[in-house]
């Protein structure tokens, strides 16, 4: 026992009891735990330019919102932080945790009003948009060539390609539903603009002028259901990570996913590319281009000047270049300044949006409360529920909300 106490005391001496923060260090909160290395490289560039050190302190995505909120409420939040688009960010601003940055130098030169919209409420802008993502179908070029499949241009051709692959013993699609969010966000909301159109149509649904169980929506659920036979066996328990592995190991030929995983397939031993999920014959193919993340500053920061200077830097050509270079592959910088991407796959995926109608994910701007009902509707049609009935549940949920 004595020896034990002695060891314990020895250990105690090795542990620093007080943490010392350097004066010119800013902290940044983020949910992008994957990006530590890249973000540190970006901050090195900034340190060279300004002399200010930024300490990247990411939290894993499921914990980010909860911990950030607690830290802000207790006055211990980071100086700079990733801010989610629309309601989540706006709520932090309304609670007084984020500084208003309308007068940030360079803001108007670098970003359009649409760019800023997800982080603006009642004319107040509270964060600098930095990351946009898009959704498309990743495909294995080798498997496509071996089975003589061309890139489909209509949804019907897409299903035919799936059938050919299945007959050849390949799992056509890698997507699963175990984690729930991915099937809705990347797959269903990724293809939804093909059925209902872009922002102009979206607002009609938001105002209630169009119903969430109208013909277009039911068609979207119906086509979603047609995909079910081509998902992996046991897709009910296939997680997002499983899906990536299925695609990366060549066990599945396609994977409908977001651009943020483009960097994951750097070391696979086959050729691959991306194509936009095609619309049914007779409709124009549209694509989601989602404004995902912005960086805002803590209203109670002890270093407001330094934090603001960093945000202003993000709006300069130098800042945008650094973002383009160091943001993870597939996270596109948001700016009307010149954006040069190095990665060929990232360029290809971004070019899919050229001359196509684009919109953010359907529920984000105004219908966030319908996220869960729509998520369950999508999963239920894959498990065999009638598409009309599934669409009705979402409309019912919407009606209940309006009360």
């Amino acid at each position, binding site marked *: 026992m004595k020896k034990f106490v002695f060891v314990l005391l020895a250990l105690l001496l090795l542990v620093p009891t007080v943490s010392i923060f350097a004066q010119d260090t800013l902290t940044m909160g983020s949910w992008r735990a994957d990006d530590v290395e890249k973000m540190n490289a970006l901050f090195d560039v900034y340190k060279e330019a300004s002399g200010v050190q930024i300490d990247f302190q*990411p939290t894993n995505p499921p914990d980010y919102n909860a911990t950030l909120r607690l830290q802000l409420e207790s006055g211990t939040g980071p100086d700079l932080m990733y801010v989610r688009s629309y309601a989540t960010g706006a709520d932090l601003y309304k609670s007084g945790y984020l500084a208003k940055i309308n007068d940030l130098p360079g803001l108007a030169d670098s970003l359009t009003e649409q760019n800023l919209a997800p982080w603006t409420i009642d004319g107040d802008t509270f964060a600098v948009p930095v990351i946009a993502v898009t959704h498309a179908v990743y495909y294995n070029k080798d498997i496509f060539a071996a089975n003589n499949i061309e890139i489909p241009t209509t949804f019907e051709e897409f299903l035919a390609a799936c059938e050919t692959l299945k007959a050849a013993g390949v799992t056509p699609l890698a997507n699963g539903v175990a984690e729930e969010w991915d099937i809705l966000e990347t797959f269903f909301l990724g293809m939804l603009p093909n059925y209902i159109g872009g922002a102009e149509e979206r607002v009609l649904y938001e105002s209630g002028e169009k119903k969430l169980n109208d013909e277009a929506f039911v068609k979207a659920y119906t086509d979603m259901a047609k995909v079910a036979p081509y998902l992996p066996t046991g897709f009910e328990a296939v997680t997002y990570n499983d899906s990536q592995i299925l695609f990366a190991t060549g066990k599945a030929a396609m994977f409908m996913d977001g651009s943020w995983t483009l960097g994951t397939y750097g070391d696979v031993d086959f050729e691959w590319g991306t194509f936009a999920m095609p619309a049914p014959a007779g409709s124009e193919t549209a694509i989601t281009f989602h404004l995902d993340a912005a960086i805002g500053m803590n209203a109670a920061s002890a270093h407001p000047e330094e934090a603001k200077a960093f945000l202003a830097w993000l709006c300069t050509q130098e800042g945008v270049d650094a973002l383009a270079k160091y943001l993870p592959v597939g996270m596109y910088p948001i700016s009307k300044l010149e954006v040069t991407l190095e990665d060929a796959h990232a360029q290809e995926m971004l070019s899919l949006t050229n001359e196509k109608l684009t919109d953010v994910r359907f529920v984000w701007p105004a219908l966030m409360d319908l996220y869960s009902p729509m998520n369950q509707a999508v999963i239920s049609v894959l498990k065999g529920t009638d598409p009309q009935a599934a669409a009705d549940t979402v409309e019912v949920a919407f009606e209940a909300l309006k009360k």
Partner: protein
Amino acid sequence: MKKSSSLKMANKHIPSHIILGLWSILVLFPIWVMVVNSFKTRFTIYSNPFGLPEKWNFKNYISVFSDSDFMRYFMNSIVVVMISLICVLLLGSLVAYAMSIWRTRASTVLYFFIIAGMMLPIRIASIKLIEIMKSLGLLNTIWSLVPIYIAMGFPISVFIMTTFIRTVPGELTESAFIDGAGRFKIFYAIIVPLLRPAIATVAIYNLVPFWNDLWFPLIMITDEKSKTLLLGVTRLFGQYQTDWSKVLAVLTLSALPVIILYLTMSKNFIRGLTAGAIKG
């Protein structure tokens, strides 16, 4: 015991061995899977999930050590858990002893007041706790965790020890008292040894949640230097999420210290459980 009867007894144990053997496989198999796959690569864990790796890959472990300050996290966790545990055991047994002798209405109320702490999720008090730690200047240090863990472990400690101490026959303690020993002497010379099984139970009961707690480090500590093991390695899950073999290396490394600690302590633990047992 006669030889024949012991043989008969041994035969009887076959069903027992089957039950425990099957359970042992069920316990060891996942752990085996975790360890062997941490030595494979991102894709080979899918082609060969259960067997030994064809080519041993140590890169996963190297990246864990190079991507994190593993040893510091480990030390922080040891210090936090050990100090919290010692305090919980000491404070808990003092209260349990007092509760067993001082039996009035007031003590009953106090007892239930303490027990009530087991029944509320302490997460709910997170904001208040951050504020308290901030005002004490403990935020971002490992010392912010110690009082919380003591308070968390205290109700269960009191509950288990009080239940146990009340089964100790009064004559045992009162006779020593009449012999002239002071109350406090009775406490450390008679009660504490008697309490050993309860102390061992409480120690293990709290060791695991303290060691494995992620929530309070997550909200209290952002400074790299003060991170606990689980908080430190959890970030790696995010970083490695697309590579299961690396995740398994992280898991193995975070599990090993407790397993080793347990294996070295298990003899003492089991002795503790059985030593003070009162023959009924």
